[in-house]
């Protein structure tokens, strides 16, 4: 088991390196294609001389490799890696260090993810289990139909519809009925409020969780169905064990493996969804930071955040792999 863990961690670190290299290569190419490298970081803006200089220094744009499209620019890559190792992820257009901005934004994103996870657990696991248990009956069909419908609605559309069509009438109605500072009024607020972090996050979190839970639900259902008919379940029943015992120990436990692996895949989507959610609903989290930076063409921030989020994704996938090994002994001995 220990060797498995060590191997997975080393592999994870290697992947981190590869991912950073890939991002570097892509950004380098984009900069090279842009003609004037430094200007690539400013989009439509016209930068001041000092901003231009800061970017040139930070990214080592003085290096001639940036004038040659196709040159992988490994020198600047190593330089950037050492900066990352020191915790230096650059600054935004106004000179604020990215790490500071992230530290402020992180709690909000975490809060959002808590709500999303709870939504997945409740809706995804519960409904998936119910659908599996009553397979073929009306409730199974209606659950699956609902999951198809939910799936079809892109997060973006749901949020735009909610934010631009529903929030204003809902808030007005809530204010009129319950008062300006009441819970319902805050629930439906069109944008995030610092004083009521949890309340204003509930509905966006719910919506985001809803869109992601459909594949989760289907997976839970499929995994449990596979186990209902599995031979080891038949064996367990033949030993005279009660239904409750069989369900807990032999069905749920065995279906946990594919479900946990699913978390790894769904996480990447959830991250994208979070970016959209925070962006549209103006929640000051990491996703919003990214969203705003794209809109403002603050490219160095964009580069920094995408890098960090990719590393986070690798971390999550590593955790999933380790959980997988903990749950299924067959893998540990590879």
């Amino acid at each position, binding site marked *: 088991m220990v060797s498995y863990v060590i191997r997975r961690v080393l592999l994870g670190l290697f992947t981190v390196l590869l991912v950073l290299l890939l991002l570097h290569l892509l950004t380098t190419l984009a900069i090279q294609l842009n003609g004037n490298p430094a200007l690539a970081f400013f989009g439509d803006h016209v930068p001041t001389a000092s901003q231009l200089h800061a970017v040139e220094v930070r990214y080592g744009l003085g290096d001639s490799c940036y004038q040659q499209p196709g040159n992988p620019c490994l020198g600047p890559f190593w330089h950037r890696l050492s900066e990352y190792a020191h915790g230096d992820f650059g600054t935004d257009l106004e000179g604020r260090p990215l790490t500071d901005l992230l530290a402020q934004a992180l709690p909000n994103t975490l809060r959002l993810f808590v709500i999303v996870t709870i939504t997945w657990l409740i809706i995804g696991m519960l409904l998936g289990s119910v659908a599996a248990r009553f397979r073929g009956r009306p409730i199974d069909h209606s659950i699956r139909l609902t999951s198809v419908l939910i799936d079809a609605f892109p997060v973006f559309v749901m949020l735009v519809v909610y934010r631009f069509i529903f929030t204003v009438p809902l808030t007005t109605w809530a204010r009129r009925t319950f008062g300006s500072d009441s819970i319902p009024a805050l629930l439906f607020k069109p944008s995030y409020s610092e004083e009521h972090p949890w309340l204003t996050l509930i509905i966006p979190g719910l919506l985001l969780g809803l869109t992601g839970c459909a594949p989760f639900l289907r997976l839970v259902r499929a995994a449990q169905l596979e186990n209902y008919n599995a031979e080891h379940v038949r064996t367990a029943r033949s030993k005279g064990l009660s239904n409750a*015992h069989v369900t807990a120990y032999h069905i749920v436990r065995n279906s946990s493996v594919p479900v946990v692996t699913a978390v790894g895949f769904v996480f990447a989507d959830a991250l994208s969804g979070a970016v959209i959610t925070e962006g549209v609903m103006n929640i000051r989290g990491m996703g919003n930071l990214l969203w705003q930076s794209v809109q403002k063409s603050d490219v160095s921030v964009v580069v920094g955040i995408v890098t960090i989020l990719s590393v986070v994704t690798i971390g999550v996938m590593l955790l999933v792999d380790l959980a997988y090994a903990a749950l299924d002994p067959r893998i540990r001995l590879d």
Partner: protein
Amino acid sequence: MTETLTDTRADRAVAPLLEVDDLHVEFRSGREVVSAVNGVTFTLEAGRTLAIVGESGSGKSVTAQAIMRLLQTPPARISGGEIRFRGQDLLALPEPEHRAVCGEHIAIVFQDALAALNPVYTVGFQLTEALRSRRHVPRSEARNRAVDLLDLVQVPNPRQRIKEYPHQFSGGMRQRVMIAMALALEPEVLIADEPTTALDVTVQAQIMRLLGEIQAEREMGLILITHDLGVVAEVADQVNVMYAGRMVEAAPVEEIFARPAHPYTGALLRSIPRLDQKGQQLEAIGGRPPELSHIPSGCPFHPRCPRDEDVCRTDPPPQLRDLGDDRYAACHFAEESQIP
């Protein structure tokens, strides 16, 4: 666990362990209803071995699973007959009582030990799961019992092996684990559903010998389900032959081999390759077992029978006829002997 049966010494001596009486099992798929088991009847006494022989699709496994109530009840349904353990009607028992009787007194060993064992729990856990869950045996005692069970089935180094997982055992060892697990609650009836089919020949012999020894020691009733007549010869006392969901022959083992009464049995015997027939062509039974949804009219075996007469096609399927000497066969021409 207290006995749930009203049981006296006299009853124990008189009532057979297991009686299956005219069992019918059907499967419903959409609008189709398929008869998987059609009138199976047999009796099992303590210390005796009954072999149920047939090709795949003959209904033998379904019979075994029906006894243990392991069939998925839609789409399966026990549509007729009785199953009695020591005189008590199993089919009439509500679920918890049935589980008590069945779990404590009847055990089943499946063919594919790798699939039948749960891959995420240790062998030790699975061996004593029923002991701890049903009889609330404490963990330390359960561990010792697990070691004893592995000892019983001759698995070396049991103290170490109870901490291992099913995939760490070889095929033969896994099958021994399955048998050990089945014996954990000291059942009186053991059903072995193709216990050696997935194993190679030398291991087969070992497992069969083990089963025989255990059965003799504990005076258990053993039902051996197989498609391999060769295995039957060594171990069985009584043989039932099944085809397309029906019993087509039932006889003591010596009679089955010496004087098979049903053409199907005869064909099965002829198709066993024999060491003294080197150089000759293997005799196969032409055609395939019928799909249960398309069983031929009349006698279900007639399309493959060497002797296919008009009456076989037109008359209703023949019932088991008493031929004397404890032999029964379901054939219009059963009296005429079928020399192997």
